């Protein structure tokens, strides 16, 4: 009996991510959910700009590459042109919370019936570890070598908390993928985000607190511990909005 195998919706190719990068785990969770809901044939994914820019190579469903930050806008067009499609975006913090903040906020405010997977690793990965809108206060990055100074650079943006103030979005949850229990919870959240779209409920965003061992300067194991010690206290896990449950 097979206990665990690669989901069909995940392409059988080597991924370009660094060793220990949790992007691979989240890719797999999305693919597992697509398999379980049986929606691979009508799913269209929107890839971002950032480390996951080549996500279109890793999913077996149709994929579109959006301009930097514009994935929710592209997803809006794809979804509205044929509402039978299941449309998801997969975006990092530089894409969603920085250059794409306007698209994110307005698609949430409009309650577009799309699913957004948001990877928050508190740093710009692809460009070499610069400070992101989500970098923690005091966090050392390439562009904040003495630690993020909140007087000069402002405070990190907590996307789930911010969007939860809007009346629009249907479902907002923050999860992490730093241990087996959190990965299983992340899978449940991602599944719910896709089910909401299948059931025409509206905008669902799952923020996944992830690691970046290379740019944090930690081993893969230490990076997962850093999530527990530093990231989760600043970005508490949980459901921030669930209109169906209210």
């Amino acid at each position, binding site marked *: 009996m*097979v206990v665990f195998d690669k989901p069909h919706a995940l392409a059988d190719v080597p*991924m370009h991510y660094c060793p220990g990068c949790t992007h*691979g785990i989240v890719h797999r969770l999305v693919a597992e959910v697509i398999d379980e809901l049986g929606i691979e044939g009508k799913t269209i994914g929107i890839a971002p700009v950032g480390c996951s820019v080549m996500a279109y190579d890793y999913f077996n469903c149709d994929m579109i590459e959006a301009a930097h930050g514009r994935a929710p806008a592209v997803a809006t067009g794809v979804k509205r042109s044929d509402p039978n499609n299941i449309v998801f975006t997969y975006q990092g913090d530089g894409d969603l919370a920085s250059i794409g903040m306007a698209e994110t906020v307005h698609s949430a405010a409009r309650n577009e019936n799309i699913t957004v997977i948001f990877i928050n690793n508190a740093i710009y990965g692809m460009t070499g570890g610069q400070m992101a809108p989500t970098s923690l206060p005091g966090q050392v990055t390439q562009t904040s070598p003495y630690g993020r100074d909140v007087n000069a650079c402002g405070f990190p943006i907590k996307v789930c908390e911010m969007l939860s103030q809007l009346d629009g979005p249907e479902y907002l949850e923050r999860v992490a993928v730093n241990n087996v229990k959190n990965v*299983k919870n992340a899978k449940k959240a991602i599944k719910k985000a896709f089910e909401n779209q299948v059931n025409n409920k509206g905008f669902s965003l799952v923020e996944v607190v992830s690691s970046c061992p290379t740019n944090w300067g930690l081993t893969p*194991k230490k990076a*997962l511990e850093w999530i527990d010690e530093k990231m989760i206290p600043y970005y508490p896990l949980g459901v921030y909005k669930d209109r169906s449950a209210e």
Partner: protein
Amino acid sequence: MAVLTFKTDKCKGCGLCVDACPKGVLALATDKINKKGHHPVEAVNPEACIACAFCATMCPDCIIKVER
């Protein structure tokens, strides 16, 4: 009995599976190098495996197949 299959050439040697295993089944093969130039994971204590699939759950590159 549990059977673990690895796509060894896709392994990046991050060791997250080794840390996730509650039974100490896995280790990085420090005497081997795969196509990508990493020390790949291998089952050093396969008879202790309980097929919990924690290793596969944490593997970012989806290289582990678990059968029971």
